[in-house]
């Protein structure tokens, strides 16, 4: 169906078939539902994340910096160039991708990025198999991310394999794109703490191009419990008293065995999803399908959650 033109929409306003804000909404989004106060929503999403206090503080600072730079520009004052490329370091499941996605929305609303979408890639998406292939693959990913954020997970892997590796070519292509499309592209390099530190240390030119470095600490057991509660609430489940105790026991065991730092929130999600499946099996077996039973996860559903 062809899109109605602005004139058609406005004549509907005139005839009383469409409210003013509905017509504007159609003009703005060509039919998508109205995102009420999107900037406020992106901020609320960030605030709703458990823990990550240092990340929230830094994002708050960035936001203030952007607003002030824009105002200074209006007043004709000298402005700092806004280089917002970032390094995210931390274990898997500590919220790096989630925060990157929210930053995309925030930067879109603040007028820093024209589209604000997130393109997530890793070494295999960038590095090719023969000479010339890498630049071509990398440029393709850059093209997809244009106007938004290119998020490179396990970025240190690009430096794997030494001088002759094609990974270096990918890095060079990325650096060139960062300079060529300053206002169009934001790069985030992500990975484990130590590996990212080594990666930046061996590529001295990179550190200065990524002035913002954010550490994502491992979650504490208590924070993971709140994450579990959030996940359950959004799926309309809740833990019984013995369910809560069982979850805590399981998280403490995982943290002692070191399993936690390689999974964090992702491990919690696996535990929750497995518990939901086990609860379903139990309810069907017991034939109890009351509303209360459907919502409650018990201790028995959680034990031995990994299999």
């Amino acid at each position: 169906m062809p899109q109605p033109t602005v004139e058609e929409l406005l004549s509907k306003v005139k005839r009383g078939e469409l409210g003013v804000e509905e017509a504007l909404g159609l003009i703005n989004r060509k039919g998508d539902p109205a995102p009420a106060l999107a900037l406020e929503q992106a901020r609320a999403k960030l605030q709703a994340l458990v823990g990550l206090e240092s990340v929230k503080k830094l994002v708050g600072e960035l936001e203030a910096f952007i607003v002030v730079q824009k105002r200074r520009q209006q007043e004709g004052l000298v402005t700092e160039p806004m280089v917002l490329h970032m390094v995210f370091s931390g274990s898997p499941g500590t919220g790096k991708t989630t925060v990157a996605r929210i930053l995309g929305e925030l930067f879109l609303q603040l007028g820093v990025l024209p589209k604000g979408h997130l393109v997530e890639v890793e070494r295999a998406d960038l590095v090719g198999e023969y000479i010339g292939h890498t630049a071509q693959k990398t440029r393709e990913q850059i093209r997809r991310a244009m106007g938004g954020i290119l998020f490179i997970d396990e970025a240190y892997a690009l430096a794997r394999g030494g001088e002759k590796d094609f990974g270096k070519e990918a890095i060079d292509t990325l650096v060139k794109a960062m300079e060529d499309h300053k206002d169009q592209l934001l790069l985030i390099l992500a990975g484990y703490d130590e590996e990212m530190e080594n990666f930046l240390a061996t590529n001295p030119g990179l550190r200065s191009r990524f002035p913002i470095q954010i550490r994502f600490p491992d979650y504490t057991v208590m924070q993971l419990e709140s994450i579990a509660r959030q996940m359950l609430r959004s799926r309309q489940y809740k833990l019984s008293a013995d369910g809560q105790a069982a979850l805590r026991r399981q998280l403490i065991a995982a943290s002692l065995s070191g399993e936690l730092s390689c999974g964090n929130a992702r491990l919690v999600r696996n535990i929750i999803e497995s518990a939901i499946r086990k609860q379903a099996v139990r309810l069907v077996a017991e034939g109890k399908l009351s509303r209360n039973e459907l919502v409650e996860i018990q201790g028995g559903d959680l034990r031995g959650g990994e299999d």
Partner: protein
Amino acid sequence: MRRTAVIGRPNAGKTAFTISFATYLGFQTLRFVRRQAEGSVELELSAEAAKGDLVSPLPHKTTQIQSLELECTVGKGKRQFELFDTCGLMEGIHPEGEIRLAMAQSLMLLRDADLVMHIIDAALIGKDQSSLGVLEEELATWGRTRGNHLILANKMDLASANQGLRTIERHFSALPIIATSARTGQGFREVKKYVLRIL
């Protein structure tokens, strides 16, 4: 001639701003051109009389688009532009056909204008945050894609306006915002500077 449209909700102070801004630019007599179905009508008034006749504390006093030809002096040169005072926009479908027509015309003008001054009553927002609604959001979103949208946080002479200004700045940090008062002339210098830069 370059066109500037003054838009906003009913009672945001569009007409009062238009008249005060013209006076600020040095115009003592104002020649309004009103567009009507039968053709345009000219109306010549002193600034004082215009305030008395055209401004009202009741919403929807302006039901026809009216424009003024103005000029700003820049150094030795002059910059001419047409300032359009429009009909207040509000959410929903207005029961009166005349007002619906005027709102549609205002939106059409908004689309074609070289510069849009979006007036928001900061004092009202300061008293009640929820009065900053979907309408402002949609106007600002459209404005951002066109890149010629200036927000005026108006009625800054009133007590609650500072609070309102902060709310407006939080909501529309991607757009230029100037705090104004049609009564005291606050912000007019910045508005003039902005007009000269854009037009």
